[in-house]
Structures are given as structure tokens and as C-alpha cells.
């Protein structure tokens, strides 16, 4: 086998062999910038984060090996434990609310009719605003000078401003309202691509069989939309588990630290307490959870196809 290969290389007409090799080299040259960026800014730090998590690694000073202290400390970190249950709660509620609103919007604008393009644009437009900008916008929106408070005050219904972010539950649901506003159009677009891939003759067949619109939705739209819904749920779940901007900017983790997400704890460990090793350990744990979720997602989506 080996000699055969060598023979072939040696006896191959010179021009053709070098052409294929040259094509391969040229291809590598075109891929080189991608390889450098992925290598230096992704693979290298990805390896480093594991090493950092096994070291006492301060922002200043040289690191020293201390495995498994950082991981042991994670278990004792009350702030982190609270953040896990809070983030899970936030993820569950946000995913349900966001998906329901997005599905409603998608069904509303799925058919071509006059003005439907404008409606889609209106529902999506918040998605064009950056998430940090949206969080800041709502920080003002929920303040005493916001439109709800002003309107209610002008009508004489309230005297004192409503504290939209004042209690843990108010802060949570005010944040979810903001996130829904920002992302409903985005999820609507995902669902629309799924809805539009359902062939129209399926609907026509259902109509000629006398199916009601609820039956059509329940027995045709929903089952055929399942892969798209699964994709939307996965994106929403992974996005919510990594929530940061909305709680860092809008609620600032308050009131009384009731809205501190997991990524906020990573940030606090690394850049308020300057303990990068501890931040790395939590990051690694988060990475493992996310990769596991992605594997499950690929399995589920793969089965549907």
C-alpha cells in the first residue's frame, strides 16, 4: 500500500500533481486569516480558560496552581447558588412568554395581505436596537418620568410614581417585558420561515375536508412547525441562561441582589473581586452545561429531520 502510494506520486505526470498540490496550498492561503482568528482568539483562550480555572489567578501577580480550590469555592459561593436558581426561573418564564408572543405575532402576519410588510417591520424594529441601548431605554421608560407614570398621574389615578423595578417580582417581570419587546420580532421571524415552508396544498386539503381553523392549527400547523419551534426554544433558553446586559443595566442586580444572573456573578468574580481563576471555574461549568444543551438540541432536531 505504502509503496504503491509512493509509486503513484513518483510516476504521476508532473504537471497534474503539482497543480493539485498548488490548489491545496492556495486554498490554505485563503483560509489562513480564518485559521489565525479562530486559533488565536477562540481556540487558545478556550484552552486557557481550563488552565486558569485550575490556578489562583489574580488580575495582578503571577498565577499559582491550586486545583480544585476554584471549583470547591463555587459550591460554597452563596451568591452563585442564588444566581443559578434565579437564572433558571428567569429562563423558564422568559422562554414561555417570549414564545407565546412570537407565535401569536407570526400567525398574525403569516399571510400576504395589504400592509402586512409594515406590520412585520413594526414588530421587528425593536430588534434593530442594541440590547444595551434597549435596557437603558427601559431604565428611563420605567422611571417616574416614563409614559405610564406620567399618563396615570395626569389622569389623577396615582400620586406617587409606580416603582416598576422596586420589588424582586416587579423587577423580574419588568425585565421580561423589556426582553419580550426586544426579541419577540426576532423569534417571529424564525417562526415565519417555518410557517412559510409548510406547503399550501396541505391547508387546502384540510379546508376541503371541513377542518375548523383551530383544528387546522392544532393538527397541521403545530406538528409541521415543531422543528422551528424547537429551534426557537433552544435559542431562547441558551440566550436566557447567559443573560447579562438586561440585569446589569436595567435592574443592576437589584433590588437587594434579587436579580443577579449567573454571568453577572462571573463578571463580579473576575472584574470586581479581580479573581479571574474563580471566574474561569464558573465559566467552565457554564460551558459544560451549554455544550450539553447543544448536544441535546442536535439530537432532538436531528430526529425531527
Amino acid at each position: 500500500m505504502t509503496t504503491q502510494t509512493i509509486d503513484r506520486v513518483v510516476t504521476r505526470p508532473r504537471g497534474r500533481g503539482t497543480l493539485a498540490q498548488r490548489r491545496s496550498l492556495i486554498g490554505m492561503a485563503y483560509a489562513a486569516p480564518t485559521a489565525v482568528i479562530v486559533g488565536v482568539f477562540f481556540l487558545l483562550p478556550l484552552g486557557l480558560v481550563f488552565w486558569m480555572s485550575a490556578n489562583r489567578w489574580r488580575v495582578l501577580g503571577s498565577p499559582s496552581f491550586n486545583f480544585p480550590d476554584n471549583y470547591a469555592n463555587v459550591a460554597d459561593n452563596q451568591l452563585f447558588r442564588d444566581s443559578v436558581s434565579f437564572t433558571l426561573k428567569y429562563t423558564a418564564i422568559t422562554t414561555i412568554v417570549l414564545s407565546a408572543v412570537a407565535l401569536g405575532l407570526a400567525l398574525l402576519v403569516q399571510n400576504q395581505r395589504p400592509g402586512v410588510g409594515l406590520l412585520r417591520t413594526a414588530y421587528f424594529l425593536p430588534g434593530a436596537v442594541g440590547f444595551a441601548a434597549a435596557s437603558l431605554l427601559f431604565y428611563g421608560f420605567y422611571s417616574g418620568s416614563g409614559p405610564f407614570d406620567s399618563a396615570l398621574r395626569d389622569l389623577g389615578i396615582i400620586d406617587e410614581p409606580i416603582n416598576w423595578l422596586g420589588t424582586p417580582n416587579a423587577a423580574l417581570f419588568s425585565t421580561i417585558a423589556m426582553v419580550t419587546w426586544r426579541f419577540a420580532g426576532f423569534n417571529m421571524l424564525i417562526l415565519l420561515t417555518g410557517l412559510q415552508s409548510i406547503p399550501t396544498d396541505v391547508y387546502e386539503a384540510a379546508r376541503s375536508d371541513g377542518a375548523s381553523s383551530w383544528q387546522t392549527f392544532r393538527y397541521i400547523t403545530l406538528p409541521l412547525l415543531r422543528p422551528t419551534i424547537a429551534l426557537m426554544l433552544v435559542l431562547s433558553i441558551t440566550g436566557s441562561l447567559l443573560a447579562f446586559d438586561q440585569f446589569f443595566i436595567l435592574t443592576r442586580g437589584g433590588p437587594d441582589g434579587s436579580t443577579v444572573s449567573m454571568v453577572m456573578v462571573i463578571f463580579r468574580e473576575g472584574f470586581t473581586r479581580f479573581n479571574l481563576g474563580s471566574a474561569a471555574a464558573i465559566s467552565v461549568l457554564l460551558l459544560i452545561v451549554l455544550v450539553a444543551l447543544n448536544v441535546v438540541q442536535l439530537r432532538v432536531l436531528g430526529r425531527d429531520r
Partner: protein
Amino acid sequence: MRYYSTAAALAILFLLPLGWAGVASVQGQAGSGQATGVGFGNYKAMAEYGEGIGTYLANTAAVAVMTVVGTLVVSALGGYAFARFRFPGKELLFLATLAILMVPYATILIPLYVVLGHLGLQNSLVGLSLVLIMFQLPFAIFMMRNSFEAVPRELEEAALVDGCTTFSALRRILLRAVRPGLITVGLFAFLASWNDFFAPLILLSDGDKFTLPVAVVAMRERSFGAIDYGALEAGVMVMALPCIVLFLFLQRHYVQGFTTGALRG
């Protein structure tokens, strides 16, 4: 009729916060940059904060330009390589690029803070842009590979037979054919880099390097006592308006990128 009243009411609900921010940014409020009436006093107050909004705008624009140009160059070359060439390590590199999507933002930014420090790129807009290019690559490479694959090979082979190098075939013929893909990739890169908050928050440390989102949040943190909501919403409008305008013009490309790339990627 009931359809349109429901749909329109919802549209108003979605547009209301944006409309309110626009109004609040020009409206007068006692003790603020715009004490009474309507005008651009809040924007002036915003402009005079810290290093001046000009600095932050310039920083943000610089990061956006570097990220967009960098993403376009890297993904056009890379997409061409993945679509048209065979070379060792090709599948592995493609998988590694897509794997970026799987790793949480924070997990990669903590070590990146250390890596950039060793490269002398800490607190640097160039370093930040390189990181943002990396985050764009999974979508951009996927999108550009598909775009190049959709171009008939004959188009390029005719040029190669005529003695063109692969690079001049790419530059003269193929880039024109994949222009819609490039616009989509550029739009996504712009929106992401203009708006990103977490990466600049971690990677930039000096006030004079801040991008707009970090600067406006810092402005709010530093205003003890009464927060100047007018100036805050003025800052929001400065951040949001370019994105809204760009989105309205390039909406078709956004949706196209969404259906062909973002979903399958």
C-alpha cells in the same frame, strides 16, 4: 377590520417605547440640559459628558468599521477557500469556526482578557475589533461559503482558463456574484459591533476608549442623586438611530441572512 385594529394596536405597542425615547430626548425637564420646552439641550448635555460624545462616537465608529471590514475580508477569503478548494484540515477548521457559537460569551472573554494583555492589545479598540470579528465568523463563514457555492463554477473556470489567477478571478468576477451575501454579513457585523456591551465592558478600561453603550451606562452610574433621563434617552437615540435607519434600508438583506444562514448555522 378586526384584524387590522388588533394588528395596528400591537404595532403601536411595539413602537411606543421607541417613540417615547425620541420624545423624551428632546423634551424639557427641570434641572436638565433642556430645562423647558422642546429642543436639543439634552443632546448638548450628553455631548459634554466625560470625554465628550464625539470621542465615544468616534470610538464606536472605529470599532464598527474595523469589525465590518475585517469580517468581510476574512469571511470572503475563507468562504472562497471552503467552497472551492480542498486542503488538509479543512473540515476541522470549519467545525472549529462553527463551535464558536456553542461557547458562552463570558467563557471566552475571561481568558481573552489575559490573551489580549499578552499581545499588547489590552484596552485597545483594535483588540476589541479582532474579538468581535471572531464572534462574527461562524455566521459570516457559513454565509459566504454558501454564497460562493451558489455561484456556477463555469463563471470562474472561464477566467482561470484565460490565465487569471484565482485571486483575480475572486476579485473581478466572484465578489460581484456574492455581493448580496457580503451585504448581509456586513450588516450583521455592523449591528453586533455597534451595539456590543459585554466585550467592551471587559476589554476596555480607560474612559477615553469607551464605546457608546459602555460610556452611556457609565454616565448613568456616575450621576449620583437625580438621573438626567433626558440626556439618557438622548444617548439611547444616538445609539439606536443609525441601526434603525440601516435596518430599514437593508431589511431585505437582513431577512435573507436570517433564513439562509442564521437558522441553519
